[in-house]
C-alpha cells in the first residue's frame, strides 16, 4: 500500500488528502477547498482591517481636508497640509531631532548590543539569570522608566548629579537644559534597549556553525582577529535584524520623551511623533497631525526597506 501523501513539496499541509477534488479550478471550489484556513484567518484579518487599515485610510483622508473637532464641514484642501508641513520650521526641527536621536541611539545600542550579545553567548553558570536580569529595562513600562529617571536626573537630589560631583565634574540640569535634554533621553534609551539588541544577537550566535571558529583557533588567530574576521561577518545578518527592529521603534520615538519632557524645553526634544501628537491632541489640529503622521509612516517604511535591502546583501 502506498502511503497517501498529504504534505506538499515544501512540507506544507495540503487542504485535503489525495485524491484531489476536481472542483478546485473554480473560485468557489478554491473557497471550499481552503474553507478551514480561511475561517481561521478571517477574524484576525477583519480585526486588522477595521482597527488598523481603516484608521490609516481615514487619517489619509483627514490629511487632505481642513478639519478641526467641532467644525461642521471639512473642505478639501488638497496637499495644503503637506505644503504647510514643509514650510513649518518646527517640523524641520522635529525631523532633525528624530534623525539625531535615531543615529546616536542606534549607534550605541548596536555596539553595546554586540558586546553584550557576545558576553551572553559564553556558557557559564548563571548566564540565563544574568540575561533575564539585564532585560528588565526593556520590559518595564515606559511610564515607570520615565518616573525613575526623572528622580535620577533631578538637579538637586538626583543620583546623576551626585556622581558627576563625586568625579569633580560640573553638575547639570539635564532635562531642563535644551542642550542636554537629547543626551539625557538618549542615555535612557540606550540603557533600556541595548539588552534587547543583545538578546537577538545572542540568539543568532547560538545558531552559528562552530567550524569556522575551530579553524581560526587552529590557525592561531588572536581573539580580536577571530572577532573581526569570523564572528562579526557571520553575525552580520542577525545584527541587521536587530537594527531593523530597533530602527522601526527609534524613528517613532515617543514614549520616554512625552512622559518626561512633553517635547520641551523649547521644543528641544520634540520628535516628529511627539510633534504630531501635540498637533493632533493639544492644538486639536487633527488634519495637520495626520499629515505629519503619514509622513512619519512613509519614513519608517523607507528605512525598513533600506535596512531589509542591506540585510539581503549581508546574507548573500
Amino acid at each position, binding site marked *: 500500500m502506498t502511503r497517501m501523501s*498529504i*504534505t506538499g513539496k515544501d512540507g*506544507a*499541509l495540503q487542504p485535503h488528502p489525495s485524491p484531489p477534488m476536481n472542483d478546485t479550478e473554480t473560485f468557489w471550489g478554491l473557497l471550499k477547498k481552503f474553507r*478551514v484556513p480561511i475561517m*481561521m*484567518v478571517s*477574524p484576525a*484579518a477583519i*480585526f*486588522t482591517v477595521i*482597527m*488598523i*487599515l481603516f*484608521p*490609516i485610510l*481615514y*487619517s489619509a483622508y483627514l490629511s487632505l481636508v481642513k478639519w478641526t*473637532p467641532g467644525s461642521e464641514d471639512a473642505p478639501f484642501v488638497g496637499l495644503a497640509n503637506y505644503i504647510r508641513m514643509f514650510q513649518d520650521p518646527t517640523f524641520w526641527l522635529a525631523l532633525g531631532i528624530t534623525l539625531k536621536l535615531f543615529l546616536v541611539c542606534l549607534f550605541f545600542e548596536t555596539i553595546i548590543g554586540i558586546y*553584550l550579545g557576545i*558576553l551572553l553567548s*559564553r556558557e*557559564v553558570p548563571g548566564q*540565563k539569570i*544574568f*540575561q*533575564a*536580569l*539585564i*532585560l*528588565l*529595562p*526593556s*520590559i*518595564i*513600562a515606559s*511610564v*515607570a522608566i520615565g*518616573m*525613575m529617571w*526623572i*528622580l535620577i536626573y533631578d538637579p538637586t*537630589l538626583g543620583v546623576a548629579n*551626585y556622581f558627576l560631583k563625586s568625579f569633580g565634574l560640573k553638575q547639570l540640569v539635564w532635562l531642563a537644559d535644551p542642550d542636554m535634554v537629547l543626551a539625557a533621553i538618549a542615555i535612557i534609551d540606550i540603557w533600556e534597549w541595548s539588552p*534587547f539588541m543583545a*538578546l*537577538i544577537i545572542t*540568539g543568532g550566535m547560538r545558531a552559528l556553525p562552530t567550524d569556522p571558529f575551530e579553524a581560526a583557533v587552529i590557525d592561531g588567530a588572536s581573539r580580536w582577529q577571530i572577532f573581526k574576521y569570523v564572528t562579526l561577518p557571520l553575525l552580520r545578518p542577525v545584527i541587521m*535584524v*536587530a537594527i531593523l*527592529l530597533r530602527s522601526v521603534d527609534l524613528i517613532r520615538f515617543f*514614549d520616554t520623551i512625552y*512622559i518626561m519632557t512633553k517635547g520641551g524645553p523649547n521644543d528641544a526634544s520634540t520628535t516628529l*511623533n511627539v510633534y504630531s501628537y501635540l498637533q*493632533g491632541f493639544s492644538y486639536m489640529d*487633527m488634519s495637520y*497631525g495626520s499629515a505629519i503622521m*503619514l509622513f*512619519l509612516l512613509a519614513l*519608517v517604511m523607507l528605512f525598513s526597506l533600506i535596512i531589509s535591502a542591506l540585510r539581503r546583501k549581508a546574507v548573500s
Partner: protein
Amino acid sequence: MRKKDYILTYLQYFILILLFIGPVLWMILSSLKSNLDITAYPPILFFQPTFNNYTELFKIYPFAKYIINSFIIAGGSTLLGLILGVPAAYAIARYRLHSIAFFTLISRMAPGVLFLIPWYLIASKLEITGNNFLDYIMLILTHAVITLPLIIWLMISYFEEIPIDLEESALIDGCGRWRIFFQIALPLSLPGIAVSVILSFIFSWNYFLFALTLANNSTMPLTVIAFNFIGEGATNWGGLMAAATIISLPALLLTLFAQRLLIKGLTAGAVKG
C-alpha cells in the same frame, strides 16, 4: 574556559548588573523611603524602610480601582488576541500563508497616533468615553492591536515546531481540521500559549498612549494615572516611586520567576516579528 576567563566574565556581569538594574533598584528603594530620606543629599543607601508611600497611594487615590482597570484592559486584550490570533497563527503556519502574517505587522510599523486620531473621533462621536462599559470595550479593542501581532508571530513559531506527522495520521483517520486543531495542535502548543499570554499581558499592561486619550476617570489604567502624577509636578517623590514600582510589578515578577520563558518568548517574538 580557563579560570581567568570565568573571573573576567563574572566581573563584567557584576558591573553590568549595577548599570542595568541599578536604576530599577533605586526606584524600589526610594519607594520605601520616608519623605525625609528621599530628599536627603547626598543620596543615602541605608535607611529605615517604610510602606507609608504605598498606603498613602491607596488612601488618597482609588488606586485599587486603577490596578483593576489595568487588569481588565491587559487581560481582556490578551484574551481577545488569543481568540483571534491562535487559529490564525495555526492556519498561517500549516498552510504557509506568511504573507498574511506580514499584513498584521503594519501595526508595528505605523505610529500609534495614526490609529488614535480616527479612534478618538469615533469614540467622541458615539460618546463612548462617557459610558464605562463601552469605554472598557474600546480600550480592550485598541490594546488588542498591540497583542494580536505579538501572539500571531509567537504562535507561528510554536506551531512550526510541532511535528506534522501526528496531524497527518489524524487526517487520514478522517479527523476534521477543526478537531485536529483543538485536540492535537492546541494541547501541544500550550507552552507557546503560556509565553504568549505572559508577554502580551505585560506589553498591554505597559502601553499607555491609547488609554491616555481614550480612558475616562473611572476606566483609567495605572499607566495613565501615573502619567498624570508626573504632570502635577513631582513633589511627592515617595508616592511617585511607589506608583512606578507597582506598575513595574508584572515585569519584575516575570524576570524573577520565569527567566527561560522570558528569553525564549522575546527571542521568538523579536526575530520573527
